[in-house]
């Protein structure tokens, strides 16, 4: 069994994830809202609306309040001299290894939400896959990007 990677994401990731989860939950809210509109026009039982509403509230509590800290605790990474080691996922725990020699390029990305919190994501591309480390502080992200680029240039494929 390998040791877990040692580095955590920025703590500011939590509010970003919560905000994002809340915005996403608004799409789920469309279900009780639509049902509410249907009630207005047709005679359908009211109790279903209460079930849908409480379902929505449970969903919000889960995705906005409970899951983000658990996910944050699980999200870890390590950038070593010869490989990148990622661990993430709450329901399904994923552990990914990317040898440094396979890295083709590395980017930092920043959407409007991340920019407000002075955060950035690092994307690592191989010939076949793209991996992302989300929500790092800008300084860490920049440093990481430069370090990976440098290491990838040094480690030549056998």
């Amino acid at each position, binding site marked *: *069994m*390998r*040791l877990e990677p040692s580095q955590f994401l920025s703590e500011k990731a939590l509010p970003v994830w919560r905000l994002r989860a809340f915005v996403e939950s608004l799409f789920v809210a469309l279900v009780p809202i639509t049902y509410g509109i249907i009630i207005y026009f047709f005679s359908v039982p009211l109790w279903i609306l209460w079930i849908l509403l409480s379902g929505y509230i449970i969903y919000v509590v889960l995705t906005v309040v409970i899951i983000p800290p658990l996910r944050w605790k699980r999200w870890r990474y390590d950038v*070593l*001299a*010869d*490989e990148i080691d990622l661990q993430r*996922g709450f*329901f*399904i*725990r*994923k*552990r*990914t*290894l*990317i*040898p*440094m*020699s*396979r890295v083709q390029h590395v980017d930092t990305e920043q959407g409007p939400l991340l920019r407000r919190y002075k955060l950035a994501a690092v994307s690592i591309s*191989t*010939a*076949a*896959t793209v*991996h992302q480390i989300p929500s790092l502080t800008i300084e860490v992200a920049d440093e990481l990007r430069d370090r990976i680029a440098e290491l990838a240039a040094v480690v030549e*494929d*056998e």
Partner: protein
Amino acid sequence: MSDLKRLHIAAIFVSFLSALRSFLIPFIISFFLGSSSEPIGFFRFEYIWIAILVFIFFTGIGHWVTFKYRIIAGELYIQRGIFVKKKRYIQQHRVQSIDITAGLFQRLFGLVKLKIETAGGGAEPEVNLIAISREEAEGIRAELKKRNAVTDQTERLEEKLDKPEADYTWKLKTNHLIIAALTSSGLGLTISAVAALFSQIEQFLPEMIYDQVFRFFASTEIMLITTFIVIIVFISWCISFVGTLLKYGGFTIEKYEKELVISRGLIEKRQLTIHSNNVTAIRVVRNIFRQPLGFGTVYVESAGGGTNDEQLSTVLLPIAKEEEMIAAFAELLPDYAREYKVESVPQRSLRRFFIRASIAPFIATVVIGALVSPYGYYGFIAVAVCLLFGFLQYNDAGSGFDHTHLWLRYRKISQILVISNKRKIQSAEIRTSILQKRYRLATFRFSILSSVIGKSFTVFDVDKKEADKMLNWYSAHSKTTIE
């Protein structure tokens, strides 16, 4: 710039005809739709089609007029574009694969199509010269190959290139070709296509014939349905039989140094070249008809190369027995010539395979059964079939590795054994769901480059220890400790 060459003028017709072919299905569909609606609607369809045909024809002319190329000192220069001029230089060391095809339309004019794939071409990784003479194509190929060969070999090789003699030749035997055609897995697809057509043809058969034919069989309703199914399966089977014969007839692999030249096809002749260094993985696929007979199909995944109709892979051996595969690998890809011992998944994962395979049809059957009782409950037959597949999937799932290679075996419908070299694997991953964790199981997946995209291969529910071993094997930095 006077030495710029155009394609053969027949390129206009070739591009017109191939565009026509790709419009054939929408055309037939619109014909069916049109014929059943008002006459005015039908005429409108016709006008639209005429406009499209004219447009295609002029595009073909435009393409021929503007497409020019030149090859000098191992560098291919191409300019094209009707409104936006595009110029492109392709240097020989960037060339991944060269594919000479003689499609049906090219053969009408005695021409070939040359497809050149380059490394990391971005949006357009390939260049097609759709109609040139065979000598010209061979010339371009020789020119683009030259320096590659010279750098690793002596001048003697150049003589060799002039009158090439393969180091090794693998030919598909006729009896194997027939077995391949009889057991083609394209059958399922053809059945659905024929069934769809059949439902349309029914309208066109004169009622007299239709009645006479079916009165003979149709003593009962069940009999009628059975007759339909038998006819559909038989026609589909004939089509896929002929299709496979045409596709893989004359299948030959020639090996020159490290290059594999694969030729195949009776009507549509294809030839493509794969450099054995570019091979990223090998897949041995045994479909449900071939597996009991001990046959399988070998595909290669390679950086560059591959065609869309094979999901970007290339067929290396259309059909072969285990021993033949090992013998052929020994010559073609010695790196992969060995037997692969598969460590099966532990027994405790059987339950998960059963559930995964049957949960969706089970729920569907219960729901539909509750709505349209009792006929809906016939769905349990499908659930039983899925359970059977679940067992087969469990039985086949497994993995293994040695110091250079990693292999996974799994089944969706056909059994697949995928083998890759550590150096070609781009990333590896273990997934553990909460339930898997309780049973000490894990899902293992690795990714490789196939043609221009990434492909991942996954095996579900292997022993967690086995998955950890594989990840450690892949790791350049094994920090093995006990948790």
